[in-house]
């Protein structure tokens, strides 16, 4: 930031600065220094994240094996064992969440794009973005009060609903963006043929945007698949195969968390293996979404 402070001495409009030729060398230096500073910032932003990737791949590759995918967790000290139930659990939770998040998200997104031009649309859009910023652990607490307390037990269902709520704003905004890209001429052509508006919306507009919406859904699945906090007291955890949707269920993320904070080396190895599996899935979904939809990840 030294360059910034040095240059800051010349307070005035750019004209007076540019008109001082004796200053030229200093200004060129400041320019070069700041180019270097910003480039260094970019590198600094990448270093920790690269370190995470490398450690997860190296440590995870040493720990992951066939048993990890096929066996149930074993008690401390016995060694071996895997997270088969947690992998199945995560998939179950994602499926449940999609049942909540996808229909509401797609319909809501269609509303925002097709009918949301007025003040109501503005408010809904605003609330959607705000909901997206609500900490996921708070959504967990909400679902706890909503479902876990009345049902008197932790359940896969509660976990699925918590993840589904997180999914709604993601799918909704993705749908809105993609539906807005559908050319008006397509709608007009369909309507001109006498096809009712709602059939036009479903069979023409949504179908045209389908690939993009699928991309948005993939990204939101990647996001909720990595969520831990909202599951801690909704889906809870389970050392065995789940027996029903009204029972607690294991998930890769909660299992990873429990193993990471436990004091056993054996469990730490399993945690790294879980991290590798989870990260591979997340990154694959993100990259695939980008390849399919030509969209940037994280959106």
């Amino acid at each position, binding site marked *: 930031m030294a*360059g910034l402070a040095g240059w800051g001495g010349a307070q005035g409009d*750019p*004209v007076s600065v*540019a008109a001082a030729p004796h200053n030229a060398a200093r*200004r060129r230096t400041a*320019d070069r220094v700041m*180019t270097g500073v910003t480039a260094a*910032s*970019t590198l*600094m*932003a*990448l270093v920790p*994240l690269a370190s*995470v*990737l490398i450690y997860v791949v190296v440590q995870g590759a040493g720990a992951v094996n066939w048993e990890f995918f096929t066996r149930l967790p074993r008690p401390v000290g016995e060694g071996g064992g895997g997270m088969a139930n947690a992998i199945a659990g995560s998939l179950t939770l994602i499926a449940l969440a999609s049942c909540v998040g996808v229909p509401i998200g797609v*319909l*809501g997104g269609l*509303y925002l*794009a*097709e*009918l949301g031009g007025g003040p109501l649309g503005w408010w*809904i859009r605003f609330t959607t*973005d*705000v*909901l*997206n*910023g609500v*900490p*996921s*652990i*708070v959504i*967990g*607490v*909400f679902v706890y*009060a909503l479902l876990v307390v009345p049902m008197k037990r*932790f359940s896969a269902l509660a976990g699925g609903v918590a993840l589904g*709520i997180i999914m*709604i*704003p*993601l799918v909704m905004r*993705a749908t809105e*963006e993609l539906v807005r*890209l559908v050319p008006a001429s397509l*709608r007009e052509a369909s309507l001109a043929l006498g096809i*009712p*508006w709602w059939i036009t919306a479903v069979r023409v507009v949504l179908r045209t945007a389908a690939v993009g919406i699928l991309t948005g859904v993939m990204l939101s699945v990647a996001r909720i*698949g*990595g969520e831990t*906090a909202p599951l*801690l007291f909704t889906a809870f955890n389970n050392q065995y195969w789940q027996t029903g949707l009204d029972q607690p269920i294991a998930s890769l993320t909660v299992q*990873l968390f429990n193993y*990471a904070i436990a004091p056993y080396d054996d469990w730490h190895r399993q945690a790294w293996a879980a*991290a590798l599996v989870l*990260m591979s899935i*997340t*990154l694959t979904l*993100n990259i695939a979404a980008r390849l399919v939809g030509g969209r940037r*990840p*994280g*959106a």
Partner: protein
Amino acid sequence: MMLRSLKAGGRGAVIPSTALVRGRRAWTDAAFRAALTAAALLVVVLVAWMLVQLVVAALPSIRRFGAAFLWTGRWDPVHEIFGAVTFAYGTAASSLLALLLAVPVSLGAAVYLAEIAPRAVFTTLSFVIELLASIPSVILGLWGVFVMAPWLRRVVEPALAGAFGRLPLFSGPAYGIGLLAGGVILAIMLLPIISSVSREVIRAVPQSQREAAYALGATRWEMIRRAVLPYGRTGLVGAVILGLGRALGETMAVTMVIGNRPQVSASLFQPAYTIAAALANEFSEAATGIYISALIELAAVLFVISLLVNAAARWLVWRVGAAPRGTL
């Protein structure tokens, strides 16, 4: 670029006026329209419902402790006395520390990518940074526990103590795990968010601003400093506040490295505890009604703060027309 084309293409929605559609068609269209509206309104209902549900569930605690909940520091489940100030402090301190570390680096990276980097570098690194934003929090926590915390304990904290050891901020034994670790791991999580939103804000600055600065003889940095950054100021503040909102509610990674001891300490090396971490650790173990109610009141406090912070951030970012594609 995507953003601008979206805006241009988005206004074409054709809604048939009811005069043109008759009979069965009119009611199926109306029904479909009602279904869409209901789905969209559900989001508003959901947010309001959350607020009501949390406040109602927190009522026993609100009645019993009143406003003292927010400014007393004793958290004692055994005697059922609950005060949240240590958690509020941990959340605020770790978030501020994270912003302090992340904002300069993210803005630098955003400026570099949007204004200086060649096209290929821009595309690649933007992609990589956003890909890294998708790494689950619990994985960063795992890395934090086994890689970052030992590094802080062995390298960073002794160095800080050696250089500034007289300040209370850097005093005491180096644990690795503690407030500093919480702040650093949060900063790492904020980097991709703040830098990608600011990058979009910077790219939304009209080209004419840059050309005007160049025409006056500005160097590239002067152009950025005098034309681009002031123009995008509102949006950049929005990006930072968006990061703050994320930091306040971030749970897993922080829980794993911050030490989870409810205390207010002058030293960054000491353990601390955040609101989100308290929820993560204690919720499923809370036995008594008033304990659960106090935890829910914590969640309600976090919820209200995150609503305010996010509303402010969206408003600021929207105002400059660089809405960062829905998410974050």
